[in-house]
């Protein structure tokens, strides 16, 4: 919907585009350039002994891709009776990953000036994976750093199963 509007806008060099999606009732966004495609939730094959947010592996036209559920990872309660669940295939420096989200909302475009830093709050979760917060009118969108959400520690955790197995 807003994609057309965006295309008509005068793109200044600092204008960045993000794909906004929902996890539960919260809005998050990813850099649009890291999004390869959006698909409906596929059938997955579970990965033995992987952390619980690893839903499994899927077949994307012959390519085998892992699918993760960010809601489990971020401890967000999924929407109920949701028919809009989708999977965003992201490309993180050549590594392809599917991310399950509750819904895809829109494409956001804003300049870096409009991004606020993460408020300094005591929090249980490590806020490192938040690149910033975009505020428009009264809604807030969290700009996610997916690589950090599933940070290296996780990658190792999975690889580290070597010793466990």
């Amino acid at each position, binding site marked *: 919907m807003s994609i057309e509007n965006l295309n008509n806008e005068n793109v200044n060099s600092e204008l960045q585009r993000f794909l906004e999606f929902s996890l539960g009732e919260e809005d998050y966004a990813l850099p649009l350039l890291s999004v390869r495609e959006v698909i409906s939730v596929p059938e997955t094959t579970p990965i*033995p002994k992987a952390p619980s947010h690893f839903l499994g*592996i899927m077949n994307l036209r012959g390519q*085998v891709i892992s699918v993760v559920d960010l809601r489990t990872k971020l401890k967000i309660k999924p929407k109920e009776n949701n028919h809009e669940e989708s999977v965003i295939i992201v490309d993180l420096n050549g590594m392809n990953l599917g991310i399950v989200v509750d819904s895809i909302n829109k494409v956001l475009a804003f300049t870096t000036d409009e991004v606020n830093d993460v408020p300094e709050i005591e929090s249980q979760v490590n806020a490192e994976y938040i690149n910033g917060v975009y505020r428009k009118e009264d809604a807030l969108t969290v700009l996610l750093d997916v690589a950090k959400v599933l940070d290296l520690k996780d990658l190792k955790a999975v*690889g580290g199963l070597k010793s466990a*197995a």
Partner: protein
Amino acid sequence: MEDFERELKEDFLEESLQLLEDSEQAFLALEDDNDSTDLLDQIFRLAHNLKGTSRAVGFGEVAEFTHEMENLILKLKTGEMQVNDFVVTILLECNDHITHMINTLRDDIEATFDNDAIIAKIISVVSGDTVGEAEVQAEAQVEEAPVAEVEEVAAEYFEEDPVEVVTPAAENFEEVPDAVMFDDSDFEEDGEAAEEVIAETVSEESNEEVEISNSAIESLREIGLSDEEIFKQLGIETAPKNDADEGLTIKKGEDIVAQTVVETEPVVAEAAPVNNVTDIKSAPKLPVQKEKPPKKKSEDESIRVALSRVEKLNNVVGELVILQTVLDQRRFVAIQDGLANKSIAQLGKLSKEIQEISMSLRMVPLKATLQKMNRIVRDTSKTLNKQVKLHLVGEDTEIDKTVLENLSDPLVHIVRNAVDHGLESTDGRIKAGKNEVGNVEIRAFHEGNNLVIQINDDGGGIDHNIIRAKAIECGLINPNKEIPPHEMIQYIFHPGFSTKEEVTEVSGRGVGMDVVKTNIEGMSGTIEVKTEMGKGSVFKVCLPLTMAIIDGMVIRVGGEKYIIPLSQVHESLKPTKEMMNKITGFGECLNLRGEVLPVFNIGQTLSRKMDDGESIDKIAIIIHNANFNFAVLVDDILHQQQVVIKKLGDEIRGRKGFMGSSILGDGKPSFILDLNELYSGSLKKNQNSIKENIARVA
């Protein structure tokens, strides 16, 4: 620079690297056979060819340098100078220099060089005699062939060619007149010699290759691909010249491979005459190709182009096979029609055949890689003042291209080590009552689904006492611990381990063998060393033939499917109550024909839910492993099929026991389990207790 000119230059650079490789081999051969006129002739042709072609395409400096080199070769040829080690060293140096020039030119086509130092060296060897130079020039002109004759011969070739698929070649052939126009200023005088050479080559080549072509085309037709499809798939019509090189790269007489090469062959043969006309002096190149056509293989650059196409083909074929499997598994359920059923079954056979062919395209012979070792051995032995003879066995053994690319470095290390550490000094050999010339043998062969490369030397062997002393010194082992000799020797693969007293130029930094081991294990291969004091050592490298496809057994664990490489499965059976024994504190054991095997439950290992029921309701898969045999319980064996291995993403790669994944007939991905790896930890940990327990049971 005009595109046309640039293209010519680039073509030349591609070709010349091949010539250089050929000449390097020839120089090395010359060292063994000092008086071989044939070799000298060949070398002279190569050098001359290089000079002529480089001048024709406008690389003056290369030509100038080659000219000097040619003077030297001419002296050798006329007998004015004797071939000796020193001369060969100079020649090899020249070869390296040209290789360097060519490689630099490939990056920067306008590059310039400083040849003075090395030219001075050559001149000092030749000692400034000008007679030689004059002769060179006189001889040079003999090689030139009149256009008409070249055309005639080429035309003859096509007439002879019974293969119908000659169309694209014929089309390309029409380019010849253009090429002729381009360079006709270069034609001079007569060219009897060249004419003869071309005629001979062309006819021989054509006969030889047409044979392959025929059988190959037949087989492709059998598979039902139309000629156009084949061309299209291989992109022949778009890039005839490059493909000519690729054609040769893949060639190798093997039928399957030849099938795809088929349509490139005419082009190859055709491309050569074009070259001859374009650069008159390249006429002598053909004989070289005739003598050693497989050498073209080592042309890395052009094979890389081919590989991407081959990979694309492999991917598409992979998809085709998956779809076919779906169809096959469904056919009795969904299709009543007998003919349709039969067709699907036949389609299955065909797809499998196509898949085999497309997989085999990735296979290349080891030859080029092994031959590089000639040079390594020569240089190493010269530096160390040892006399070494290298024997190559099984050069034509084929292996997956990606495996080959990673093989070269480890091999160089092992071969160098064999010459440096393995073989004794000449004095040492005489004292030991051996022939003063040391032998290193590289033997390549297939063993099951593996390629084995064995590097043997007849040196002094590895002294496990020295290894032990060194290992204690490095703090790797406890001085009081007893370690059997054959295990002790494996410490040479330990990082930072080197027993050589002095660090030589060649080796001794201790960073060799552990890198070798890591590299080889990175390719899912293994390396073993065996040694006998006073007799020599054997390094045995085992590599998987291909990393892309395996025969798999599909098993069921609860509601999930997993794939086990069939090569790991020794047998499978349904255990009876009598066979299963429970040992408290250890677990279950399977008594199979007197052999007691530890039993693992795959559901527990992977934390998956299995069907309810006792062990005797499951299926036991027996795995034979180098260290230990064991049984793995699974819910069911579904079927066996060939699976295309898909790599796992970085996020789940490197998990122990997971080789990769594959897409099964239902379109869903499944994991391929490496049971040996999956249970290697458990075995080591439990090995002693297992043994004790088994001793108790038995």
